[in-house]
């Protein structure tokens, strides 16, 4: 065999050897990739499985919260009026009034009265904490001051013998005050209350 043929055979063998080495290494790397992708797919599958009910649950939570917001907004506006309601919200949450009440679009354009300057900060803080409300039973600020299950106990304590019914002797009327009242109370120098004349 001529020398050129031997060299050619050697060259071809070298090329084939290089192909084998690199292709086997590539196959091993691709197998590692496949294993990693299998793990990733398993993790993604778990994520999909665990997040499946999230949409429905969050939707239910949002619907309930929407109902609560509608209720509280409506009650606040009904009892305080739209303008004072905006003022009260402004006193409690100064940045929240800009968005206005959700069910009352006009509230966004109302200039909030300065209720926060009329009532003391302590009053507004107490209102914000809401610890007098039964809803505060779940408040992170602490347990409710009033037991929601027995909230009428304090009211019933006002009439321990039972509420006066129609026809019963009426309670004493409130005193009439003023310069033309039948009972005059002279002014005292020390500012304390004085007895009737």
């Amino acid at each position: 065999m001529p020398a050129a043929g031997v060299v050619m055979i050697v060259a071809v063998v070298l090329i084939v050897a290089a192909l084998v080495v690199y292709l086997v290494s590539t196959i091993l790397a691709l197998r590692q990739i496949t294993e990693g992708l299998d793990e990733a797919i398993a993790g993604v599958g778990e994520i999909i499985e665990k997040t499946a009910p999230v949409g429905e649950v969050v939707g239910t939570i949002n619907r309930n919260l929407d109902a609560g917001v509608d209720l509280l907004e409506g009650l606040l506006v009904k009892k305080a009026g739209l303008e004072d309601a905006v003022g009260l919200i402004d006193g409690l949450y100064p940045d929240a009034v800009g968005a206005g009440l959700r069910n009352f679009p006009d509230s966004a354009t109302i200039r909030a009265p300065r209720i926060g300057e009329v009532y003391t900060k302590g009053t507004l803080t107490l209102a914000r904490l809401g610890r007098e409300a039964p809803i505060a039973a779940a408040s992170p600020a602490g347990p409710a001051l009033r037991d929601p299950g027995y909230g009428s106990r304090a009211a019933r304590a006002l009439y321990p013998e039972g509420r006066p019914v129609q026809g019963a002797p009426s309670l004493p009327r409130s005193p009439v005050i003023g310069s033309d009242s039948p009972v005059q109370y002279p002014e005292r120098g020390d500012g304390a209350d004085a007895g009737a004349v």
Partner: protein
Amino acid sequence: MTLEWIGDALLLLVVLPAVVYLLHGVLRAARNIVPSVRQIAGAAQAGSRDLDAVPLLLTTQDQVIKTVETAANYGGSLDVIVDDA
């Protein structure tokens, strides 16, 4: 004979280096993918572990319903007690 030597030279000096260069590039790219895939798998598993608390949403849902019901009861009482504006 001269042509055979030229062919040998081409094989050894051109074809073999080209084959080695191209295969080395493929192998390097494949090996670069491996750590990325492992990171993705780790992130997917960590995300799955983070979602273990999702069932607590059911508790949140129940608490929200109870809270809104309590607020509705309280609001109904206020509606009776407090005069309208």
